[in-house]
């Protein structure tokens, strides 16, 4: 038993934390590094959460997203050919296998469980017993249901369980612009779903909570760019897919300008939900004439991320750091209200990088 848990720890859990070290460090810095009175700050936040059902709902939504991320990672690991040996766990019987996989879920979900315990203590002090029940019920639901899914995957029965609706292929013309998106739709549905949910929720919360006292495009522009930049993992997956499966397209007689336009079309399609949803902010946050600036900024930003990945073999960790640095820089640049110059400048840089590196990029070099 100890050996099995140790193997699962090494193969799945440790790798998960290593992979997400950047994210955890960032959260640790924001939550414990920035506030001056850490204890007082966290108690105040926790009190705010447990005293409002709406706040609690938002917390549950973010925990659910984190759980989806955990599920996405663990299912990918269990399906990976190099982890096929893990099926030997099944020899111990379904019940025991379930508890082994519960251990994996418990450890990767530990940050949420720990915070839920903290919230429970705060709720207990304020005699909010319904909230305690909700917290316990939610965390137990997340901890106990996910291992059932892992068990099915280990038994290689997952294909029968897939949602038929989500499993349908995209019946759109397959061009170099749409094939990478079809790949994301077919092979990275969870990632796509979580990303879109997150980016649209971000926009929604901004529109609902922020009340401008005068017209200024900068707040909505920054929020919209954050929303767009949350698609960065999809951009990374698209580049990986292009490297693995679309190398032969370099043998197509297309000019670099044409290929760049194909990439523009691809990111317009990827950002279509955000580009449509942002109209909810009209006319309070932006005027129709400023929509071009919003749309062009978001599209050019994803193009820049795409072209940065052409400059070398950049790992996910390094890429996330670049994305964070870019988000910080954008915040300061937007403060100076650069107008349409910003997206045009980003677009020009993207094209210059694309032109220089498209044929020079070589995977693994």
């Amino acid at each position, binding site marked *: 038993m100890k050996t099995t848990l140790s193997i699962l720890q090494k193969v799945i859990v440790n790798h998960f934390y290593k992979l997400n070290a950047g994210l955890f460090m960032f959260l640790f810095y924001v939550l414990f590094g920035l506030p001056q009175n850490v204890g007082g700050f966290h108690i105040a936040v926790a009190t705010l959460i447990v005293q409002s059902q709406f706040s609690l709902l938002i917390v549950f939504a973010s925990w659910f997203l984190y759980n989806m991320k955990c599920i996405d990672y663990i299912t990918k690991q269990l399906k990976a050919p190099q982890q096929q040996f893990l099926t030997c766990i099944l020899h111990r019987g379904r019940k025991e296998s379930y508890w082994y996989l519960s251990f994996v879920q418990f450890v990767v979900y530990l940050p949420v469980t720990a915070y839920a315990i903290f919230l429970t203590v705060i709720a207990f002090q304020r005699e909010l017993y319904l909230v305690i029940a909700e917290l316990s019920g939610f965390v137990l639901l997340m901890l106990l249901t996910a291992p059932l899914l892992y068990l099915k995957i280990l038994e290689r029965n997952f294909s029968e369980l897939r949602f038929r609706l989500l499993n349908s*292929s995209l019946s759109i013309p*397959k*061009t*170099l612009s749409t*094939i990478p998106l*079809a*790949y994301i739709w*077919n*092979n990275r549905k969870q990632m796509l779903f979580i990303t879109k949910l997150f980016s649209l929720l971000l926009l929604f919360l901004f529109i609902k909570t922020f009340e401008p006292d005068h017209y200024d495009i900068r707040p909505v522009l920054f929020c919209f760019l954050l929303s767009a930049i949350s698609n960065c993992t999809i951009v990374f997956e698209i580049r990986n*897919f292009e490297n*693995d*499966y679309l*190398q*032969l*397209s*370099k*043998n*197509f*007689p*297309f*000019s670099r300008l044409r290929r760049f336009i194909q990439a523009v079309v691809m990111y317009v399609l990827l950002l279509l939900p955000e580009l449509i949803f942002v109209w909810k902010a009209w006319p309070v946050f932006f005027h129709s004439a400023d929509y071009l600036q919003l749309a062009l900024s978001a599209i050019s930003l994803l193009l820049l991320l795409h072209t940065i990945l052409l400059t070398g073999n950049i790992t996910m960790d390094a890429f996330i750091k670049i994305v964070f640095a870019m988000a910080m820089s954008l915040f300061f640049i937007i403060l100076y209200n650069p107008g349409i110059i910003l997206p045009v400048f980003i677009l020009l840089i993207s094209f210059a990088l694309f032109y220089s590196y498209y*044929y*020079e*990029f*070589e995977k693994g*070099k």
Partner: protein
Amino acid sequence: MLQLKQVKKEYSATAVLSIDALTIENGIILLQGENGSGKTTLLKVIAGLLPFDGDIIMNDTFSIKKQRTAFIRNINYAETEPLYPGFLTGKELVKLFCYAKKGSIANIEFMLRQLHIYDVYEKNISTYSSGMIKKLSLALAFTGAPQWILLDEPLITADQNAIDTICAMINEKHEKENISFLITSHQHFNNTKLSFTRRLLAHDRTITIVE
């Protein structure tokens, strides 16, 4: 005619291909060599899939570095172990290639029938066997009107019927449309259905003409 000038290709600072000057005349050319001798790298370099130092010029007209689009329009390539997205159907891939290479879909469909894989044409590539994927890639290499078709180990994993069909297709394209072929093999090529006009040998990171 392809002229290779000062072509050098390195992986991790190790030279895998170094050709000072080489002229490959039109025809059906066999490129032989051991595993790792640089055959696939040479084909990928000519097909524009890999960056390299030097230049390649076609018919004294197009340089791959200076007139890349025009050069690539005249080069088709089929990989040894083709890798296509499994969620695409054969039909979607054929449409994509025919659109890019300005080829006739009907011609490719005819080839697929000859290679006995037309019955899976509308099925996802993930359902294809490796032999079927290889046949599909060979048919795709004949899309459009190239001057050169580069075939990397075209006959491996192919059954006897497919070998005969592929050889017939190569001969027909060469005779009727004057298309040249550069075909690699790491084994002794004992197929008599193809009459090679020239043999090249990949050895010691360079390519030499076998007289």
